[in-house]
């Protein structure tokens, strides 16, 4: 449904995107994760036809976003990370305005708006002025606005930012509902836990480059084939790190804190036992030696710190 190929964007000498490539299948929820300034918004704006790339291509529903932006706009709903509303319009008038901008006939708009307000749970605010809505309600209204023309694809840039915990849960439920409706969703966040349980696919971006991409299971499995072992030593951290690096099956060693080593290990359980034995026989004062869980959050931290490259 969405195909991005070698996307690059330069602002003068600064390279915001350095050849990003990924594909999103129809009906999937693609979580776009990365620290602030990684290039998430730039990528999403290019897909949303609001920015032209310096190089590369992007397709939505097989339509080239650079060559046929108007056709693309028909199939996408875009929610930016920061957006404003028209203060002097009521909720229904606000949606009616955007529906008319999408050339939806007046006789159909009434029903569409009623359905959308019900979907985003704002029916009771239909006659309220937009300005008087809470932040969470405005976010939900903006999501309803994205849906007025029934787009196949939703591009949501940090839809839960600035929301309180309850509003975040409500937003998550809403996205689940949209997934059930068969929408393809690309959603960005710099907080991975927000997306972990919602997404079918994940793309991790850092400094304008895609560090990892694929289904949540595949990325987890791919990286989980490397066990993550946390080793704590009371002294001689550098000696220990050096020794561990020389052992078979050790992919990488990171010194995360004072006396703590994160070991990425590709060997099996027997190899793990051997590793511990070696450390003890070499006189390394091991305080603890334990395999830690490879949560999506851990993977994200490892990937974006350049451990897995």
């Amino acid at each position, binding site marked *: 449904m969405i195909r991005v190929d070698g996307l690059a964007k330069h*602002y003068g000498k600064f390279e*915001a995107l350095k050849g990003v490539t990924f594909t999103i299948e129809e009906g999937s929820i693609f979580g776009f994760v990365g620290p*602030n*300034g*990684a*290039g*998430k*918004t*730039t990528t999403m*704006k290019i897909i*949303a*036809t*609001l*920015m*032209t790339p310096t190089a590369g291509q992007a397709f939505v529903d097989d339509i080239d976003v650079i060559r046929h*932006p*108007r056709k693309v*706009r*028909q199939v*996408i709903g*875009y929610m*930016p*990370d*920061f*957006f*404003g*509303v*028209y203060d*002097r*319009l009521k909720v229904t*008038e606000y949606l009616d*305005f*955007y529906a*008319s*901008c*999408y*050339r939806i006939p007046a006789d159909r708009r009434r029903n569409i708006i009623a359905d959308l307000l019900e979907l985003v749970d704002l029916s009771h605010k239909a006659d309220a002025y937009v300005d008087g809505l809470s932040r969470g309600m405005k976010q939900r209204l903006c999501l309803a*606005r994205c849906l007025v023309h029934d787009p196949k694809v939703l591009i949501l*840039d940090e839809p839960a930012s600035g929301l309180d915990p309850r509003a975040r849960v409500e937003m998550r439920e809403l996205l689940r509902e949209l997934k059930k409706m068969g929408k393809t969703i690309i959603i*960005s966040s710099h907080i991975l836990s927000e997306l972990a349980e919602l997404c079918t696919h994940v793309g991790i971006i850092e400094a304008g480059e895609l560090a990892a991409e694929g289904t949540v299971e595949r990325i987890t499995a791919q990286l989980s084939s490397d066990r993550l072992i946390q080793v704590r030593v009371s002294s001689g951290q550098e000696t220990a790190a050096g020794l561990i690096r020389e052992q078979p099956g050790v992919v990488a060693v990171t010194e995360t804190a004072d006396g703590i080593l994160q070991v990425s290990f590709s060997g099996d359980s027997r190899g793990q036992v051997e590793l511990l034995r070696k450390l003890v026989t070499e006189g390394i004062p091991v305080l603890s030696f334990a395999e830690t869980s490879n949560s999506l959050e851990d993977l994200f931290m490892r990937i974006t710190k350049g451990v897995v490259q």
Partner: protein
Amino acid sequence: MISNPVLNKELRDRVRTWRSPLVITLYLGLIAFVGGFFIFEQTRGGMGGPRVYRMGIEIFNIMAILQIGLIAFLTPGLTAGVISGERERQTLPLLMITRMSPLAVAAGKLVSAISYILLLTVISLPLYSIVFFFGGVSLSQFFQVSGILLVTTVLLGSIGMFFSSLFKRTTVAIIVTYAATFMLFIGTIFLTAFIMQITQYYIGGPVTGPPTVPFIIYFNPLVALGSVLPMGGNILPFSSSNLAVQSLTPWQVNLLLDAAMILLAMGLAVWLLRPTRAGTKRRG
């Protein structure tokens, strides 16, 4: 055009503010006060004969000049914030990714501003009727003056739209639009006088008559207005017999210049409104 959603929204938006009735009241109040004061002053010594005929013309002239002054004062304020305001509120990208073309957005915004000025003009019509009570002004002259006021409104509105699309901040757009309006109405007069002084001084030679008024004065809407006001209402300090173009009347030349400026300003505004520019603020 009425099916333009931006126009519909803008019209609704405009009448929902407290400013709208206030501006209407002040506008009518000012025209009524000036017109009434003039009638009061002129009729103190009694009325009758040709004086009444002249009075109708004079009131008409004063009201027309007052109205073009009010248009020059109001139009930049009505238009210079319409695009930059959307940008500041962060609503422009949302609008530009709909099926609305930049031209439809710009046209909707411009027509809404012009409609508001038209509303002011229409509700001031009863005040104009006083002129016809005195006589001396033909209906065609009234329509000619109205036409020039309308074209001037569209011109100032287009200039406001251009600067509103060009600058990100409304304050800057408004200041620059008022500066451009000032240049058009006052700057051109000073520039004309300056050029005439320079040519007279440097070119010198035997004086065969008054020097030609430079072309730049045709940009001034007051030249067009002056040339259609009854009884040769020459409102500028230059003789119309020495204007650069003699084959066309001043209002015709001004109209052609206005048309070119409107097309240029609106063309640039539409170009600046393209969606890829609406979302160029870098983030993330």
